C-alpha cells in the first residue's frame, strides 16, 4: 500500500487538433511511478493532478492566431484555477502559445522570421535553474531538444522583457552547440533568443522545443528527460514536504 501514494498524476490536455498529446503521455509514462492521462478539453476539472501538460499541435487548426481559440476551451477555467493554486503547468509548442493567449504567460509567439515551418534538432542554453522545471539542470548547460513550429518567434514589449530578465523568468534560450546565444543560433527570430519562459510564480512554464521527442536514445536523444525529471523530482519533494 505505501507505494501507491507516491504515484504522480499528470493530465495531458487534449484540445481538438492537439497532436503531441499521446507523445507527451508516453514520455511521462516512461518514468517510474508516473501516471499520465489524456484529459479532453470539454472537461471542467483537473483536480487531483500534480502536473498539467498542454501539448503541441494545431488546436482548432490554428487558423486564427495560434492558441487563440483553445484558450476558450472549457478546461481552461480549471487550468487557470490550478495554476493560481500553484499546480505545475507545462505548455509545449502549441501549449506555450495557448498559455500566452490565456494570459498565464506574458508575450506572444509570432511567425518565424524565415516564414517557413522549421523542424530540426536545436541547442538550448539553460538560463536559470531555480524553478521546478529546471532544478535538475545546471546553469549554462546545453540541451539538444528539437523544435517543430511555424510560429515560434517570441515577442514581448520592452517592459515585459525587462521584467522577465529581472525575475529570472527566461529559462531557456536558443544557442549553438557551445551554448552561445548568437543570432545565427536563433531559428525563428525570437527576441533575445527566448525559447522558454516561466510565470512570475514559477509554476507555469512554456517552451517551443519538444522535450517529449528526446526521451529515448533510439529517437535521437534523451535531453528531454532532464526537464521531465526536474519536474517529477520537484513534485515528489513537494509531496514529501506536505507529508
Amino acid at each position, binding site marked *: 500500500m505505501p507505494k501507491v501514494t507516491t504515484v504522480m498524476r499528470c493530465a495531458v490536455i487534449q484540445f*481538438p*487538433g*492537439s*497532436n*503531441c498529446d*499521446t*507523445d507527451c503521455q*508516453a*514520455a511521462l509514462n516512461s518514468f517510474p511511478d508516473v501516471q499520465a492521462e489524456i484529459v*479532453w478539453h*470539454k472537461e471542467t476539472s483537473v483536480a487531483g493532478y500534480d502536473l498539467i501538460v498542454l501539448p*503541441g*499541435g*494545431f488546436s*482548432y*487548426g*490554428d*487558423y486564427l492566431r495560434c492558441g487563440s481559440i483553445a484558450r476558450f476551451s472549457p478546461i481552461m477555467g480549471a487550468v487557470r484555477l490550478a495554476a493560481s493554486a500553484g499546480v505545475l503547468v507545462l505548455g509545449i509548442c502549441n501549449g506555450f502559445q495557448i498559455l500566452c493567449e490565456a494570459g498565464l504567460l506574458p508575450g506572444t509567439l509570432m511567425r518565424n522570421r524565415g516564414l*517557413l*515551418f*522549421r*523542424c*530540426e534538432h536545436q541547442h538550448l542554453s539553460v538560463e536559470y535553474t531555480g524553478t521546478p522545471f529546471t532544478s535538475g539542470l545546471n546553469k549554462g548547460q546545453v540541451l539538444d531538444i*528539437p523544435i*517543430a513550429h*511555424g510560429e515560434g518567434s517570441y515577442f514581448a514589449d520592452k517592459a515585459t522583457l525587462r521584467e522577465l530578465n529581472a525575475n529570472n523568468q527566461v529559462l531557456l534560450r536558443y544557442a549553438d552547440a557551445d551554448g552561445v546565444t548568437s543570432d545565427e543560433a536563433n531559428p525563428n527570430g525570437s527576441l533575445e533568443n527566448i525559447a522558454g519562459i516561466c510565470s512570475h510564480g514559477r509554476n507555469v512554464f512554456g517552451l517551443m522545443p*519538444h522535450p*517529449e*521527442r528526446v*526521451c*529515448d536514445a*533510439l*529517437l*535521437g536523444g534523451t535531453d528531454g528527460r532532464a526537464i521531465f525529471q526536474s519536474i517529477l523530482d520537484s513534485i515528489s519533494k513537494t509531496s514529501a514536504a506536505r507529508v
Partner: protein
Amino acid sequence: MATSPAKPDQPAITPELIAKHGLSPEEYEKVLAILGREPSFEELGVFSVMWSEHCSYKNSRPELRKFPTTGPSVLVKAGEENAGVIDIGDGWAVAFKIESHNHPSAVEPFQGAATGVGGIIRDIFTMGARPVFLMDSLRFGSIEGETEQAKTNRRLFAGVVAGIAHYGNCIGLPTIAGEVYFDDSYNGNPLVNAFCLGILRHEQIARGAAKGVGNPVFYVGAETGRDGLAGAAFASRELTEESKADRPAVQVGDPFREKLLLEACLELLATDAVAGIQDMGAAGLTCSTCETASRGGTGVEIDIQLVPQRAKGQTPYEVLLSESQERMLVIVNKGQESQVTEIFEKWDLPYAEIGVVTDDGMMRVRNGDDVVVEIPARSLADDGPVYYREAAPFTPPAPLDLSTVPYVDPVEVLPRLLAHPSIASKRWVWRQYDHMVRTGTAVLPGSDAAVFVVREANKILAAATDCNAVYCRLDPKQGARIAVAEAARNLACSGAVPIGVTDNLNFGNPHKPENFYQLRAAVEGISEGCIAFNVPVTGGNVSLYNESPAGAIDPTPTISMVGIIDEVSHITTQAFKKAGDLIFLLGEIGNELGASHYMLAIHGRKEGAPPALDFDKEIALHQTLLGLIRKGLVQSAHDCAEGGLAVALAESCFGNGLGATADLCSVDQRPDITLFNETQGRIVISVKPSDAAALEAELAKTGVPFRQIGTVTDKPDLQIATGASLYNWPVAELSGVFEEAIPSLMEA
C-alpha cells in the same frame, strides 16, 4: 417539393454535352444499354466521373492485372478496398498506399498538394488503421536559372512543399522520407505522389461495403461545397493553357477537420456499430455510394437534400460531383445510431443520416421526392469500359559511345553533381515537414530509408520511395525493374526486409502508342521485380495524361516499398561512424555511364542504355548485407545511386565530421567512369577494423563480389586515388555545396 417532370432547368443531353463529360460515343452507347433509357443530367455526370481513368482505370486495368498481388501476408488485396493490408506479425498489420495529385498541384500547388496528403490519409484510416507516417515523391521542371519557366518551377516546388507541410504538420503525421527530382520533362506538369502508412490489429480491418439491408447511411465531416467539381474527370485530361480555368476543380483542404474526422472514425471503428465505411475522395458522394453498394452486393439510396451543405442553392449535380474534402460515408448497424452520433458530437463534426441500404442493387439518389439518379451500382463501379490500347514498338536505346563523352576532371565533377538539385540535400524540404511528431522516427530523413518505431506494436518499420525516371525514359521496363531493386536496396541498407510495394504509375496520354508502351513496359518491369523480391503489390494509383503542351513527362513509375527491421540493433544508417573504420564496396566497381546523372548534369545528355540489372545478384547482395548487419558487423551502409560511387562516399562522410580515403589505383579505366558510373548492385559499407576478418570470412562464403576500398579518417577530407590520379576534396566544401544548392536557389 417536386420539380416539374420536364426539369426545364437542366441542359438537354446533346452529343456536345456528352463529349464535355469526357464520354466517348461508344461509352455513351454503353450508358444507354445499362439504363435502357436516356440518362438524366445527374446520371451523365455520375457516369463521367466513375468511368474516368482516375476512378475506373479503364486504360490501365488489363496491365495492372500483371502485378503479383497475393501472398501469405496479404490480408487485404490490391483493388479490394481503399488500401491493401499486410500482416506484420503478432496480430498487427500495416495498411499503406501512394496516390497522385499531379493535376491539381499543377494549377494550384499549395492546395493541390495539401489535399493529396489529406486524401491518402483518409484512404488509410478508412481501413481502420491509425496513420503513423507519410512520405512523398515529387517531380518538377528545373529550378535553376532565371527563365520564366524556372521561376514557375520554383513557385510550384515551394507551393507543393508548403502544402504538404501544411496538411501533414497540422494533422500531426511525420513526413519521414521521400524523393525530389528536377527535370524539364515535368515543366507544366509536376508530379506530387503522397504515401501514407497506418497500423492496425487484424481484427480492426474495416470494410467499405454497404452491408445489411435497412441499415442507415450516415454522412460525416465537412459540409459539401462546390469545390473540386468533377476533379476525377479533370485529372483524366491533358493539361493545357486553359487548365488554369479548371482551378475550381482543385479542392481546398482543412487538415484540422480531417484530424477530428480521423480521431472520430477510429473511435467509431473501435465500437461494433459500423457495418461499412468509405471515404469520399475522387468523385465524392457518387463514388462512395456506388462503391459501397457494389462491394456489399446491395443498393444504396440517399437524399441530396439531407446532405450537409456549405452553400444554399447547390444543384443535385453539384452535390453529387463535388470533391469537397474531409468527408466520410458510414453505414451504421441499425439500432446503434446513437452510439455513432455521440462520437460525432464529441468531435464537433457535422453529420446527417442521408439514406439507407437497400436490396435492389441500385444507386438511387433522391432530391426530396424526385429521383435524379437510378443506376445499377455494380454496373457503374465494375462494368466500366476497359480499353486495350495500342503500344508502339520499342527501339532499345543505343549504348553510350564513350568516345563521344569528353573527359571532365572529377575534381570539378563531384561538387557539381552534389550541387545538382536532384542529388543535393533535400533538407530545405524536410525541414518544413514535422518529421518527428508521434515520436517514432528512428532515422531522420536523408538516409537511404526512413525508419519508424511503432511503439504500440513493438515493430520497427522502414520505408523508401524510388524511381529514376531518366532510366525509365530511355528504357521503361529496365527503369521500372531498377526502381524496385533500388527501393529494396535502400531498405536493405537500413537493415530491413521488404514486405510490400505500392506503386504510383505516372505517365502521359495512353492514347499515344509510345506512352502506352511505357505504361505496359513499366508494369512488366515492376512485376518482374516484385516477383523476384517476393513482395506483393498492395495497391497504388495510376495517373495518366501527364502532359503539357511541350509533351509527355518522362515515364515515372514511383515505387514505395515498406520493410520490417527485426531488432533495434539492426537499424543502420549511411553516415560513417568512426575514424579508422574500414570501407568496403559490395558489388563491382562498374563501368556503365548510360542514362547516368553524370551524363545528364555534366554533359547535358539524356542518352544511352540504363545499367544492367541481375535480380539474382541483387537479391544475393541484399541478403548478404542483411546477414552482416544481423551479425553486428556493419557500422554504416549506403547504396550507390545517382552520381555513383563518388557521390555515395561523399554522402557517407556527411553528418559526423569525418573524412575518407579510397584506393582504387588498381582500376584500369577512365577515372570519370570509375567514380560516377551507375552500375547497379553496389553498396558502400564501413566496418570496425576488429570485425574486418569476420566480415571478409562471411563475404567469402556468399560469392558476392567485394573489395576493401579505404578507411574512414579523422581528417575531414575525401581522398580518392584511381589510376594515376589522386583526388582530394575537403568534406566541408562538398557538404557546403550539397546543403546550400537548394536553399540558395529558393531563397535568392
